[in-house]
């Protein structure tokens, strides 16, 4: 699949998720090696009103979404992949008034499970705000099986 097709599929996936639209998430970059989404800074996602720092929940949503949609980079067809688990380690707080980018890649794909990892950053991907690992369940193509657990999908 071409990088353009991957980006287009990631875009279609993202616009279907209402809460991601509320946060204003957009596709920044997508290719076979992984996906980068952008979370714009806004007053509504502030977690600490004194410092203006973004709430961890908004970063978690960015990274759950990025990890979940990064599955389109490696799967030949669209599949529903609910999150099994997600872990975030915060390296340092996000700087206020700056957008946050989330990158994720799938580093192992099995018939049932996809292992993803990634990081969130602002100016420099080499200085991440947070490191993330997430595991996703493969449910097959939509229609085949629709019962799912939580998560972005």
């Amino acid at each position, binding site marked *: 699949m071409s990088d353009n097709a991957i980006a287009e599929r990631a875009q279609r996936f993202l616009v279907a998720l209402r809460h*991601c639209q*509320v946060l204003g998430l957009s596709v920044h970059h997508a290719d076979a090696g992984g996906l980068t989404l952008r979370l714009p800074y806004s007053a509504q996602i502030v977690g600490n009103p004194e410092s203006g720092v973004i709430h961890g*929940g*908004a970063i978690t949503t960015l990274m759950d979404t990025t990890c979940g949609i990064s599955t389109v980079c490696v799967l030949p067809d669209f599949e529903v992949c609910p999150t099994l688990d997600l872990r975030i380690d915060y390296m340092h707080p996000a700087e206020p008034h700056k957008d946050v980018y989330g990158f994720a890649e799938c580093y192992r794909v099995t018939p049932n499970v996809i292992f993803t990892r990634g990081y969130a950053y602002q100016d420099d991907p080499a200085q991440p705000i947070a490191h993330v690992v997430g595991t996703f369940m493969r449910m097959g193509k939509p229609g085949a099986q629709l019962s*799912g*657990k939580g*998560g972005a999908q």
Partner: protein
Amino acid sequence: MNVDLNKLVAEAHAKNDYDALLSLTPYARLIGIECLRLGDDMVFRLPANRDNIGNPMLPALHGGVIAGFMEHAAMLHLLMFMGIPHLPKIIDFSIDYLRAGHYRDTYAQCQVWRQGRRVANVAITAWQTNQTEPIATARAHFKVDEP
């Protein structure tokens, strides 16, 4: 902005009205977190809200919203019960999704397993229809020693 959190917490407990404490955080307002005091315990509630949906097919809440709700519940729990005069800072957060978080009200309860001088370890459980059938469990570490 300079808020006396200790005073706000004391007032909230005295009046059994936590709105001022909850409305302090824009993100908590965005997703719509509420809390209910049950004796010495606190149950947090996330009312069903279309804007929190992340799976249009089921429909189900976005996993990130469930996680954000649980993270904020843990922060509030530490503020309310552990005598911490400032917002705890998140160090790490790990969540297991056990069942679909359907488009309905969600509840969360916290357990502080350990509070040291610098770091607190909190376990959070979230459920919808039945507390014995959680939709997610999470654990988090917070830095609690400085503003």
